[in-house]
């Protein structure tokens, strides 16, 4: 069963950390379809966080189709992530690699590349492109 950790210094909200840790465990194959997630009481007694935070994280996982709550029993993993996404996005990944190579050749360092991506992504959002 997955064991949660909360890093109070990360600046990431506890709820995001829980969701992220389940997703990460799924990607790494540490948690599989059918596995039960710890109950709310188990999580709060272990890591001392607000019970509603755990509920909210589990609802988010349910919404994403990764988990399912069974009333009176608990929350269970309904889907595995270990082999899906990476393969499916190979083409996009290849394009991005090519773009990164061109950006480096143009003399951009890592921070400039990140800034360029960020600002393009943002202006794309506001123009309704992305």
């Amino acid at each position: 069963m997955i064991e949660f950790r909360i890093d109070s210094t990360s600046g990431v909200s506890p709820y995001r950390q829980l969701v992220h840790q389940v997703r990460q465990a799924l990607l790494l194959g540490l948690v599989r379809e059918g596995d039960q997630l710890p109950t709310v009481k188990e999580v709060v007694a272990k890591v001392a966080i607000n019970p509603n935070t755990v509920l909210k994280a589990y609802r988010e996982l349910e919404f994403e189709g990764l988990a399912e709550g069974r009333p009176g029993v608990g929350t269970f993993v309904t889907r595995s992530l270990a082999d899906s996404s990476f393969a499916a996005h190979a083409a996009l990944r290849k394009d991005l690699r090519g773009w990164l190579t061109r950006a480096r050749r143009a003399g951009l360092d890592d921070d400039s590349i990140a800034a360029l991506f960020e600002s393009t992504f943002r202006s794309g959002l506001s123009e309704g492109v992305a």
Partner: protein
Amino acid sequence: MTAVIEASAVGKRYGRTWALRDSTLTIPAGRVVGLVGSNGAGKSTLLNLAVGLLRPTEGQITVLGGRPGSDARQLGKVGFLAQDVPLYGGLTVRDHLRLGAKLNPKWDAAGAQGRIARVGLDPSQMAAGLSGGQRAQLALALAIGKCPELLILDEPVASLDPLARRAFLADLMDLAADGLSVVLSSHLLADVERVCDHLIVLAGGRVRLAGDVDVLLATHKVLMGARRDPDRLPAGQTVIEHSHTDRQSTFLVHTTQPVLDPSWTVSGVGLEDLVLAYMATQTAGAHPADPTLRSVG
């Protein structure tokens, strides 16, 4: 939605000094509420008003539908852990439980004994010889033993070492998971972020910010970009805090709308920064009257 605490324009004056002024609040049931503010901001005063140890000088406060401390029934519904964790030094742990059973109309003897055993307290130990963590655990056992609907704690973990603090909070969250409403004051913002889902910021004896943490974080944004005058922000963006260099401006704004202006670098705000910004509004005098900041969610 039922409110556990409802305050309307509550104020408390000691002599000529107002400790709390014009405070209006609605705290929904089933929350773990964090009450934060500088020393002297009015936290203990507000909590003491809620348990009935103080009477308001002006305004009204209702707790679980009744007047605080009005009768035995009302007292039984609210558990309170005062800042100084008052215990009887010359009495044993067992004596304290016996006292709890005698003084409360409702008393969960098995639950209280189980809690004492679980945290490893020796029933025959004198309270005077307990460590800070053990004192807090005994006081919590007494406050919980009376089966309250609302538990109020005034800086419960201030005197505890990190290990005892974590254990105490885990215990508290276990109770919250069973539906107990909790209001706690604390200076430890990291703890507040972990355990609280509703926040109240007091500064200078006034409520500066109150609401569900999710909503508060979603409706505050940090804007960074080329230098700009605060007056030139759109009407829907209320400036909470701003700082400027020659070329750059940074704003913390309250807004319910997405920030679309692409010239800003927009980021979310962490709970700690949000709290600190509102605590600082004491001197600036900003915001107490902004209705959008009251009881969000």
